[in-house]
């Protein structure tokens, strides 16, 4: 059967069962690499996307529950040529080692900055508490989010 979804501003029809976790549709049908399979249990955050602006774990989100929602993935934030402030800040801080968790870090940070444009370091750490990193890049990630917040602040004022 086909289900309609709105992903990164475009309507997409996907041939998947309603209980299919969103991550498989994003990765396999829509060929979006950003969301990563980490656990399938909503424990690690690697698969994070925004659903109506809220950071959700796409590995446990059945597509039937998001048919009327705006789904946003990291691909729509920016590109290599025109990176989003968060993406630029992650590059400037060299805030990745293997990088597998970084999609989730950036999407969770996006949700944070959207509701709190001037977070403290503690705010950032708390907002990313459910996103695991195994390489030990934690401090660079925090610095990158704070840098992006500062950069966005400069753009706004």
């Amino acid at each position: 059967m086909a289900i309609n979804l709105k992903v990164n501003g475009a309507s997409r029809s996907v041939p998947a069962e309603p209980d299919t976790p969103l991550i498989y549709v994003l990765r396999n049908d829509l060929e979006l690499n950003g969301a990563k399979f980490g656990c399938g249990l909503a424990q690690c955050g690697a698969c994070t996307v925004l659903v109506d602006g809220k950071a959700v774990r796409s590995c446990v989100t059945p597509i039937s529950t998001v048919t009327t929602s705006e789904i946003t993935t990291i691909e729509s934030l920016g590109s290599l040529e025109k990176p989003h402030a968060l993406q630029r800040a992650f590059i400037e801080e060299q805030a990745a080692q293997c990088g597998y968790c970084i999609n989730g870090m950036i999407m969770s940070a996006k949700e944070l900055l959207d509701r709190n444009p001037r977070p403290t370091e503690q705010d950032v750490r708390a907002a990313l508490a459910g996103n695991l990193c195994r390489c030990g890049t934690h401090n660079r990630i925090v610095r990158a989010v704070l840098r992006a917040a500062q950069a966005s602040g400069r753009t706004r004022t």
Partner: protein
Amino acid sequence: MTSPAVNRREFAAGFGAIVIAFSLDPKLARGQERLPGSLENNRRLDAWIRINADGSATIFTGKVELGQGILTALAQIAAEELDLPLSRIEMISGDTGRTPNEGHTDGSRSIENSGTALRIAAAEVRAILIDLAAKRLGATADQLTLAEGIVTAPGGRKLGYGELAAAVDLRREATAKVEPKTASKYKIVGKSVQRLDIPAKVSGGATYVHDIRLPGMLHGRVVRPPRYGAKLETINEAAVRTMPGVVAVVRDGSFVGVIAGREEQAIKARAALSGDSRWSGGTELPDTGKVYEQLLSLRTVDTVASEKRASARPSGARVVEATYRKPYLAHASMGPSCALAEFRDGSLTIWSHTQGVFPLRQDLARSLQIDPAQIRCIFAEGAGCYGRNGHDDVALDAALLARAVPGRPVRVQWMRDDEFAWEPYGSAMVMKAQGAVADGRIVDWSYELWSGPHGVRPGAPDGSNLFASWSLAQPQKRPLARNIPLPAGGSDRNAIPGYELPNHKIINHFIPEMPVWVSSLRTLGAYANVFAVESFMDELASAAGADPVSFRLAHLSDPRARAVIEAVAKKVGWKNSKTSDGVRGRGIGFARYKNLASYVAVVAEVEVDRDSGKIHVPRATAAVDAGLIVNPDGLTNQIEGGIIQSVSWTLKEEVRFDQGGVLARDWQSYPILTMPEAPIVDVELINRPNERSLGAGEASLGPAAAAVVNAVAKATGRRIRDLPLTPARVKASLR
């Protein structure tokens, strides 16, 4: 610049099974001169470097990107010696059809081996290009200047590498007679350049093996037994075959898996297959409480790693004894292991995040009983592996499934519980130390360790080290595990302290056959040995009434070892305080990794919550000497990462078992350090541009563990000798 990440064109190139004509493994004639680094076994210049018609260079390396930034550092070395901007270097890595065979990317050896080969080969290629340009320009080589791939003659006439590309013949052995640049001439090496792989990683670019999509690709999943070595009795194949999307159920001996059109269909079929399967036999695992008892009861191969006896123990010396224990640890990669396989016309192509495409090809060939020449293994990045995790095993899983559907590529990704329960762990270890101090000096030191093997990887002389191969209908032999010899060592890595110990004996009780599947986890035995040796140094310092920093310096003559300890002590303002408030403490740990690579000293600060037993590490400070630094920020990133990973291992991590099997199944049963818990890390680099580069990727983990444990002992006055420092252990120590 072309991203070193494998792109779609390269994925597709696998189908043609392109075999490049240069010899990847030349037979070494007797009497040949030794060549530096990995040139020794890959002697031809064209194995490493190609000059392209557009003036760029393509660099081939057998070392692979594991998230440690190695391709960027190797590109810097090649660009420097070729006098090309970094943007005109393309990196090709880890492909049995295209790159040199450099074995495994492990042991913090890539800069030392591949970097050295590239430095020497690129210097020689540059000289060849200049000679060629001199002939064309009617000048002598010393009259020419070279910058950014353009050769300029005295009259101003110019020739670019691109114009020389067609005439340059690199089908020759390296001579290693061309001197590479001296460090004072470096423009690219030694600079913190941005990593080549990060832009794609922050923007959803196709970066990982997990992201490869091939035309007609199917999805596979495997069903593992309930226990090691269990035999598959029955599965309900018929019921699973009729599930939506299922293409095949594949069984070979006790290996079983399923292939489906869609990934979520394969996952559902796996669950059904798993629920309906019956298994018998297999190894019973020890209860977590009996792990060490069992370890000490196993058959060992005993060797004396080092022994010296200069004098008898003076009477009146204070004797100290301690036993330290380190549990089984999981690599716990963020991304479950993944591989793609395709059989076509009798040939197999594998895309894998293995640490060694050539050794993997060998074990795949044995397991599948086909000619290695019929297999091409292409590396594509995975999530950080930190050693030999499931990456090699899933490649065989994918091949076994793909064999059932020739012409169709099959992508297999393990589920989270597969990854936790079926990766080979870092071995549990026990370390017993006895020492004596008199007049502020260590007058005796004896140390024994018990450990399973660490280097259990593909590429052994016989058999196969791929998990599924042991339970096929025609099973492969499990190779005899051997310890990695000293000086690098395996289980005894860093068991010999770097201190001056005129009387010492170090014994390695190596356990070749383990009840638990173990292999290489970052640092091998060094994490446990440095934890034990450096804990014991503090215990001896305490017995001698000495300050831990002064006590270490008093037993160290190597000026570079002293320098990192002095630097970190200065950076934190180390003071010898005899008292503590019972909550806060500071500790130091030091080691030279493998006793031959980077020097690292770490000071950790801890805060102990005496009610909950929870330890917080607010800050860790490190000083590092890695010789000539190629990419300072890259090195800092590795040292920081190692420290945070080590704090996670040290405070939280332990693979637990009961008789039903492995209890680590997810991030709740195997928690790791979270963002709010991670310490701030300060790193001071001591650059030594005139010394050779030393491996550093694994160098900070042992010292960081010791620093934390010593800090806790300082804070509470009670020493904990069993890892991890769980709240329960901390509270028990305070009673």
